[in-house]
Structures are given as C-alpha cells and as structure tokens.
C-alpha cells in the first residue's frame, strides 16, 4: 500500500506541476503588459527594457515559470496563504465533508431500513430539497433566520484574536459547516442508498441470509459496509465541488479563508495573490483526492497494489 500511495503522490505532484503551468500561462493571457502598466504608455524604450530586465520579463519563459513557481510557493505571500488562510479553509472542508459523510450514512440507512415509511419520504424530500439549495442561498437563509431573527448564533464572522476560545470557535463554525454539509449530503446519501440496495442483491448477502443472519445484521454488517467503499471514492471526487461551496460560504459568512482571499484578490485584480491562492486551492483538492484513495485502500483489505 505504501508503494501505491507513493505512486499516487507522484502523480499528484505531476498534476500540480501542470496546473501551475496552466495558471502561469493564464497570467500571460491577461491583456496588457505589466511594464506599460507601471511606466505608462509613453515610456521610453530604454526604460521599458530596464524594467523588463528588472522584473525578469526578458528571461526565457521557463526561467520565468521557475521564478514564478518559487515566488508562489516560498515567498512571504505564499507562506501567509499557507499558514493563515488555508487552515481555515481546510477546517471548513474537513468538518463539512466528515459531517456530510456521517449524515449520508444515517440518512441512507434509515431509508433502507424503513423503505416507504414516513421517515423515508420526509428524508427523500429533504435531501432533494437541500440538494437544490445552492450553498450561497442556504447560507443566507440561515444567517437571516438563525442569526438575525432568532439570534441563536452569530450571523457571521470567525473567531480571531478578539474572541478566542473553544465556545466561540464552535459557535462560529456551526452555520457555515451546516450550510456545506446540508447542500452536500443529498447527493451522497442518494448514491449510498443506491449502492446499498445494489449490494443487497449480491451473493454474499444471499449467503448471509441462508446462514440465518438477521436482516438488520445483513444490512449493517454486510451491505452497508461494502457500500461505504464507493462512498469514500465519491467523497474524494466531490472535494473540488465541495471546495466551490467552501469558497462561497467563506464569502457569505465573512470567514477569512483562502476562498475569500481569492475573491478579494480577484476583485482587486491582484493577480499574484489570486494565482497563488488558486494554486494552493488546487493543491488541497488534489491531495485530498490522494487522501481519499488512501482511506479507500485502508478500508478495503482486498485491494493489492503492485
């Protein structure tokens, strides 16, 4: 398994390198040249050449890429993104995916254990409904209802230096994480339910039944456990989509994470910051996928990678 993970990590690094190149290429698509932007359009050719040399814009494109990548990864700015913004984003992504995973399991199990019951119908309607909620709208409805009308939770913000402490952290985390988990759980639970129902047709279920196992035991110990594997894969695949929502949720709830930083940079047309954050967001989702693969191979002892 260790070797398999190494291979996957190597692939991830290659992928990230290509993504870095794409982002760098995108920077060159921006109309206009930074030199003229700095010096103005009546700059003398000599001044232009000097500034080009100063900024390294006269270097071969590969050198420029190297310098850019170095600046993205190792500069003070990259460090800030890594130490200040990304942890917040990771918190949101991590908590919401774990909670959505757990909720999906509960929902799917209840639905399969009691098909066509009231609980099944209500849950089906709810999961469809929340699935249809875009994160930005559910977040707003929660802010308005829970934060501003009922005054149960702070409507937005993030515990910073002003309000340290575990309580404040939890209180600020509930609504953003709920928004993310609720908008995600619908797709996952429906997938899990379908794969449990499929697993119930499998031979090992028939065997278990023949051996006299109770229906509940068959469902939980056999069908459900085997259906968790595809859900782990789905979770990994869904991370980029979930990250889309994390970006929006950070904006809605005024959470100082990488997503909000990305949008702030785009709004201000600060491309160096925007591309740095964009690259780190890609790092998170690509590595997240590797982690999901690792979980998968941990959960399924049958898998042998050579």
């Amino acid at each position, binding site marked *: 398994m260790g070797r398999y993970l190494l291979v996957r990590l190597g692939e991830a690094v290659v992928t990230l390198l290509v993504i870095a190149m794409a982002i760098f290429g995108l920077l060159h698509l921006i109309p206009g040249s930074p030199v003229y932007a700095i010096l103005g359009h009546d700059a003398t050719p000599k001044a232009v050449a000097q500034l080009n040399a100063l900024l390294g814009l006269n270097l071969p494109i590969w050198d420029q890429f190297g310098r850019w990548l170095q600046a993205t990864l190792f500069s003070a700015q990259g460090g800030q993104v890594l130490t200040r913004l990304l942890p917040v984003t990771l918190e949101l992504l991590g908590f919401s995916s774990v909670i959505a995973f757990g909720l999906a399991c509960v929902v799917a199990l209840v639905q399969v254990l009691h098909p066509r019951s009231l609980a099944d119908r209500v849950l089906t309607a709810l999961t469809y409904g929340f699935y249809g909620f*875009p994160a930005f709208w559910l977040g707003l409805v929660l802010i308005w209802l829970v934060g501003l009308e009922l005054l149960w939770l702070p409507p937005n913000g993030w515990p910073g230096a002003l309000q340290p402490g575990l309580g404040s952290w939890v209180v600020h985390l509930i609504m953003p994480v709920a928004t993310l988990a609720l908008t995600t759980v619908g797709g996952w639970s429906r997938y899990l339910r379908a794969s449990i129902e499929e697993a119930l047709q499998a031979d090992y279920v028939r065997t278990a039944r023949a051996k006299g196992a109770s229906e509940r035991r068959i469902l939980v110990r056999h069908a459900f456990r085997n259906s968790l594997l595809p859900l782990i894969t789905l979770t990994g695949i869904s991370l980029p989509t979930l990250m889309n929502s994390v970006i929006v949720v950070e904006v809605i709830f005024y959470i100082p994470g990488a997503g909000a930083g990305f*949008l702030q940079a785009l709004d201000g047309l600060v491309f160096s910051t*925007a591309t740095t954050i964009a690259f780190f967001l890609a790092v998170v989702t690509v590595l997240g996928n590797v982690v999901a693969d690792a979980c998968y191979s941990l959960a399924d002892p049958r898998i042998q990678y050579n």
Partner: protein
Amino acid sequence: MQASTTMAAPEVPFSRSLGSRQRRALLAHPLWWVGLMIIVALAVFSFVGPLFYHVSPIAVHPYISDSPPSAHHLFGTDVLGRDELSRVMWGGQGFMLVGFVSAICASVLGTGVGLLSGFAGGLTDRLLMRVADIFLGIPQLVPLLLFDVIFLPNDFTMIVILAFTSWPLVSRLVRAEVLTVRARDYVEAAVAAGASRPRILRRHVLPNILSTSLVSASGQLGQTVLILATASYLGFGLPPPNPNWASMVADSTQYLTGGNWWLFLAPGLAFMFLQVSVYFIADAVREAFNPRALQGAS
C-alpha cells in the same frame, strides 16, 4: 447478466435513434414529468410573463423603495424601488438561456472529446484524459473566475468559459463507454468487413454511446446551472444591468439586517425550483437510459 444481454441482443432492432424502450421508460417516469412541468412553468414565467406584466425590471422608484409584498407589488420592491416580481421574471431569462446553452455546449464538447479520446487511443487519449483529470481535480470555480476576470464576461464569453471548464466529466463517461463499445463484436465485424474508421465511428460507435452522452448531459445541466449561479452570486457571472436570480440574491445580502426577506426569498426559491427540476429530469433520464437500472425495474 452477461447471458441476458446476449440473449436480448437479437430482439433489439438496429436503429440510429435512441431505444424506444428507453424512451418509453422515460415517459413513464413520474420525476421526468414533474421536472419538466416545473421547468416549463419557470420558462413561461420568465419568458412569457413579461409580455403580460408590463412593469420595468430596472425602472427606479425611490418613493416606494423597500416595500414588502403588497397587492400592487406582489413580490415587493428593492432598495431602489424596482419591482421585484418583474425582476424575478427577467432574472430567469438570461440565467436559464446561458445555463442551458452552456450545459449543451459542454456536453457536446465532452462527447466529442470522449469519442476522440476513446477512439484514437494512444498519446491523444492519454493527453486529453490527463487534461480532463486536472479539470476534475480542481474546484471549477477557480479557473472559471480566473477566466472571467481575464475575458470580461458577457453572455457569449460566459457560455464559452462555462463549457470550457465543464466538459471533462462528460468526456470521461463517454470515453469509458466508447472503450466498451469498441470491444464489441459488431465493431470487430465492421472492421473485418473493411469499414473505414469514420464510418465505424459514425455508424457503430456514436449511436451506441448516445444514451451515455444523454445521461451525463442531463447530469451536467444541474452542475452548470449551479456554477453559473455561484459565479453570478459572487459578482463574476452575467453582467448587469439585466437582473439574474443569483445576483439578485447577492444584492439582497446588504439589506439582510433590515429584514427584507422578500428580496432573497423570491429569486432564491425560483432558483431552487429550477435546480430541483433539473435534478428530477437528470434522475429520470439516468434511470430510463441506464440498462442496469432497467434490469432492476423489469
């Protein structure tokens, strides 16, 4: 399962169109009709509604600003006194048009890439799928917003950007299907009979991957509409002054503390109906065209 497929094969007549059995399954699916009805209702509301409701969505009336829903303004007015009902109507137009057209473009592009990749194989295949994987591995919002800032958005560029960032999922699924179809006996028979590659592609592969393409396209619709809404919400999607549901929700956020619930409720609900109906249709199409689901049903 293997046996049943081979046994059923002679009964299925060769046809270029999608199977009539699948079409019947689709038309018998309740979710298909519910979804379709909601979408048609929303389309009528947005496209036909303004023909009968002659209130400008952008005319400013400061003296009636911020009024809650009333008999005169059914959905209330916004902070500039613009009629919210009219704005919700108009807000659906560009939104649905751009969303649907880009989803179709993304699906066509994805099907094309998937066909090419699966059929050509080799280096082409590996390169294309590598690119697809990269797009699938990163949050779509990131390239979308970067493109959006660089190529200033209007309806057309928005469609191009959306299609360009959403094709990979369709292409992956189509490619996988092409690979299985290519290995079938009838393709080998066609090769043995000396059919040219374009002929095999057109005559044998394409008709057999259409249902996969359709299923992934219907799934793509929801994704594209959602990402368009999200980008518009963040201020990077469809440009003003024409309203759209997502940017209307975004505009309302500044007045949340004032309790102007009608400003985000109407466009948000409209979008939710659209999204849910798209999911309904996607589910119905998937169940009708997925042979495995069909087997389970019969």
